């Protein structure tokens, strides 16, 4: 940060000299301090994507290439047409830096922000999902503090607004110890008409600009610039840059906004998030090709004496900007009055294409509407880290423990154990839509009331895999989240991503970002999945320790199920049924839980994605669904096939006779076979009568499927057919370990 002084007024800015020169060129003069602050905010990494934009151009134009995509990247949220007149909006965002400093309010306002993004598409927010990353909890009070209050912040905010939190994902790893990741995703549902009513543009001159919701205070000033640099010990002093959420006001904003949109008098809608009023007014007019005159003193402030710089840069929460047709102003304001919301008519649009802000009668800001979005971009250097070859070459040690004890350890490990401690705190049922609930499936499934349609949503990526190979890791993340929705019977429809990386000015950090984007792009083009939005969070580094977080390109997938009878769930159901493994197991233990839990190893050979195999597996599963052959389905993920099978036994307290003699490849060791995290595999439950037909169908798809066991009434898993001795696992004991890990760490 540098301190600048213009005409006796001082401010701290992040801008480089080059950028300052560009501002002068755009204005043909020197900016005043308020204008400079506005450019500084809008040209921050957080708002302008100046490092990532050149790379993100790789993604195909989803709106142009997929007929059901109604809004793609660049909008506040991606929107798809799911038929029957309904639009589904969704987006994912990060709130990492605020949460690392002040976990409760940081996480809560993250939820607040993502809800606004969905709301400003004119649809009702109906679900939240939260991928999280923390340091290990064991013996680490700081990680426990972050974890406890992030979860509480999400719960208190989400529960109060009446939006169910239907899913999420969490990993614990040392690299996130000081820079935790809090990503928040929201899904909205509405009539396609309502979505069309409310574009995020002010395209019509003469409309009113109305600000509604919370008052504008001094909180959150420079929130985005704070998010655009690394965390340091100085960050404690940045605590005032974290906003304070008010979920009750947010609930009122949701209801008032949706009622206002229904009138048809709203011509544009924008939330006030990062960059506050600066971002909202400049994007509304800039994207709408209009201008506006705004009167600053109409804005209701939390305290007297706020100057124009503070009002324009404030990131106070719970505010929305409406562009209202002149004939409808009274109707819209009456709705705001009914909900007892504060509001102010702060200005009108015009055709000047200039944004003018007045403080009393003084013109304090006079900027061409589009100038603020003309940030320069940076071509960042990228370099593959030199440590990777050494890491990938790491060999799996010879097991010092018996396989049975290794399995008990894995089941109880932080990254595999039950996450019930988290989701019990989230109201995941409000809205009466939640059909497959937290813990019952690989994804959350919601019904669309009034139709026979269901949506499925999942979030995730494996940070340890991405650390070793970001290109394959990002693809693997897509395989995983697609696998999650497919396991519940849904067809993957579209994805959004949230890229969490280190400092883009460091070539090794930028390489991770660059390779992840390439991986996502290649996979989505090959498998025809539209990318309808994204968010980038850089500077996730710990400057004191000089370490970056493990690369984490979180992916959110939304899928569609037609017909209640086509919903599939995770638990094994019937004694005597077959357990089948679909997909090939390779010696891919790099970045596995087995390596990290048992040997404290980060390296090894990470999984690789074979897109044609993946495609064939998905097509095969949908064929089996069509024939009603699948009784239960779970994708194979952390801990490998044995962990997936165990998880499927829990709900109905079943056991299994497993015989791997026909399955295990001669070149594989027992531990490689059981714990490999090769992607794209599924465990399914089927009726033995259908086995021959299933084998026949698998040949059409050139797939290798194996029967690995039979379900047993005794809650015991008997494992044989490995190269080493047979062993038995006690399902109740494992369930106990699985359930008690996080409570034991957190409830002291």
């Amino acid at each position: 940060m540098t301190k600048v002084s213009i005409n006796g007024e001082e401010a701290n800015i992040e801008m480089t000299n080059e950028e300052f020169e560009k501002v002068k060129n755009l204005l043909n003069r020197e900016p005043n301090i308020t204008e400079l602050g506005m450019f500084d905010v809008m040209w921050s990494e957080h708002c302008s994507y100046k490092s990532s934009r050149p790379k993100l151009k790789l993604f195909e134009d989803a709106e142009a290439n997929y007929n059901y995509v109604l809004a793609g990247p660049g909008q506040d949220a991606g929107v798809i047409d799911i038929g029957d007149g309904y639009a589904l909006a969704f987006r994912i965002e990060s709130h990492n830096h605020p949460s690392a400093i002040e976990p409760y309010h940081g996480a809560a306002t993250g939820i607040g922000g993502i809800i606004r993004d969905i709301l400003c598409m004119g649809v009702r927010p109906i679900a939240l999902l939260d991928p999280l990353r923390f340091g290990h909890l064991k013996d680490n009070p700081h990680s426990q503090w972050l974890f406890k209050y992030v979860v509480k912040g999400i719960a208190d905010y989400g529960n109060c607004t009446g939006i169910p939190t239907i899913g999420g994902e969490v990993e614990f790893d040392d690299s996130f110890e000081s820079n935790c990741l809090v990503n928040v995703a929201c899904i909205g549902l509405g009539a396609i008409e309502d979505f069309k009513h409310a574009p995020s543009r002010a395209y019509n001159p003469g409309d009113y600009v109305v600000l509604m919701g919370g008052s504008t205070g001094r909180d959150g000033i420079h929130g985005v610039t704070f998010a655009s640099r690394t965390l340091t010990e100085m960050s404690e002093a940045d605590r005032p840059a974290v906003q304070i959420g008010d979920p009750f006001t947010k609930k009122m904003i949701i209801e008032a906004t949706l009622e206002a949109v229904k009138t048809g008098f709203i011509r544009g809608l924008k939330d006030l998030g990062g960059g506050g009023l600066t971002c909202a007014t400049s994007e509304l007019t800039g994207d709408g090709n209009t201008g506006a005159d705004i009167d600053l003193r109409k804005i209701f402030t939390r305290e007297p004496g706020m100057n124009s710089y503070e009002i324009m840069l404030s990131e106070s929460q719970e505010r929305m900007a409406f562009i209202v047709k002149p004939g409808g102003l009274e109707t819209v304001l009456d709705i705001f009055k009914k909900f007892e919301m504060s509001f102010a008519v702060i200005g009108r649009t015009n055709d000047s294409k200039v944004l003018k802000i007045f403080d009393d009668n003084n013109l304090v800001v006079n900027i061409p509407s589009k100038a603020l979005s003309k940030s320069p971009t940076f071509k960042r250097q990228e370099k593959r880290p030199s440590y990777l070859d050494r890491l990938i070459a790491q060999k799996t040690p010879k097991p010092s423990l018996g396989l049975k004890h290794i399995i008990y350890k894995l089941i109880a490990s932080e990254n595999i154990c039950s996450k019930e401690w988290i989701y019990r705190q989230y109201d995941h049922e409000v809205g009466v839509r939640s059909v497959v609930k937290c813990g019952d499936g690989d994804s959350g499934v919601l019904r669309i009331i009034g139709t026979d349609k269901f949506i499925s949503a999942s979030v995730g990526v494996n940070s340890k895999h991405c650390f070793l190979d970001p290109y394959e890791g990002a693809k693997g993340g897509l395989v995983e989240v697609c696998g999650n929705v497919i396991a519940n019977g849904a067809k993957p429809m579209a994805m959004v991503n949230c890229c969490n990386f280190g400092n883009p000015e460091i070539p090794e950090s930028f390489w991770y970002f660059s390779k992840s984007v390439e991986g996502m792009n290649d996979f989505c083009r090959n498998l025809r999945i539209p990318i309808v939005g994204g968010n980038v969070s850089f500077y996730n580094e710990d400057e004191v320790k000089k370490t970056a977080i493990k690369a984490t390109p979180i992916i959110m997938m939304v899928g569609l199920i037609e017909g209640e009878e086509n919903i599939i769930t995770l638990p094994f159901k019937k004694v005597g049924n077959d357990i089948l493994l679909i997909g090939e197991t390779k010696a891919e233990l790099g970045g596995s839980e087995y390596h990290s839990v048992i040997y404290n190893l980060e390296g090894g050979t990470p999984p690789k994605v074979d897109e044609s195999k993946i495609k064939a597996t998905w097509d095969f599963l949908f064929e089996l669904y069509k024939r009603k052959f699948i009784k239960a389905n779970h994708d194979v993920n952390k801990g490998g096939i044995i962990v997936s099978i165990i998880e499927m036994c829990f709900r109905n307290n079943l056991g299994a006779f497993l015989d791997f003699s026909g399955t295990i490849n001669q070149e594989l060791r027992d531990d490689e076979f059981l714990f490999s995290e090769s992607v794209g595999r599924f465990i399914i439950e089927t009726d033995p009568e259908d086995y021959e037909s299933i084998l026949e169908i698998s040949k059409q798809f050139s797939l290798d499927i194996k029967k690995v066991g039979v379900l047993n009434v005794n809650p015991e898993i008997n494992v044989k057919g490995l190269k080493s001795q047979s062993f038995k696992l006690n399902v109740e004991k494992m369930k106990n370990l699985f359930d008690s890990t996080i409570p034991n760490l957190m409830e002291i």
Partner: protein
Amino acid sequence: MSIKIAVIQFPGANCDLDTVHVLNNVINVEADLVWHNHFKETHYDSVILPGGFAFGDYLRAGIIAAHSPAIDQAKIMLKDGRPVIGICNGFQILTEAQFLPGALLQNDCLKFVCKWVNLKVENNTTALTNQMKIDDVLAIPIAHGEGRYYTDNMKELEDNNQIVFRYSTEQGELTQEANPNGSLANIAGICNLEQNCIGLMPHPERASETILSPKSTDHGKLFFNSMIEFIKRRIS
């Protein structure tokens, strides 16, 4: 004569639409969503205060809503015997408005809890339970942070048969493990002396459709059907 039910929309209520959905589309009875300031008792046979966070639960859960004009209207209904039902936050409002005795304190685990529980029916003569049997065990979800029922007058409640529901095991045992929030004597719902005002923490509107239930049950319908039956008997 057609039956009409009001579901009050307090600012911050969030189970209001869910409750209207179940009444209209599952129970097939006419229900209106009524903004709290606009509520007039004369139009309705029954009123439901739905779950949520009325007025953000600021100050104390339910206390601000208890002073809404809607509560004055509900009092008229209470006095002439029409059903006044409080679900979750609605129960908190009813105790704050002193329609029902006792209070709802923070859960003993100090956290919000969302899960399916078992509910044992203790009184089947009320406006919300006349279609149930004593000792029936119902599957229903809870979702609250402040649901630990407490009263100084336990004896009075018991003597007057005001305990309507208790948390139990699937087999109907009243154990500590079956009690999700530390409520006194596993109490989940109570009624007034006249049995037309009932408050309960669990959510019958979330348990009225088999598709939403982990056990494919629809026990929630029993609550609303009881209410309809009570109204029919009252007006006939």
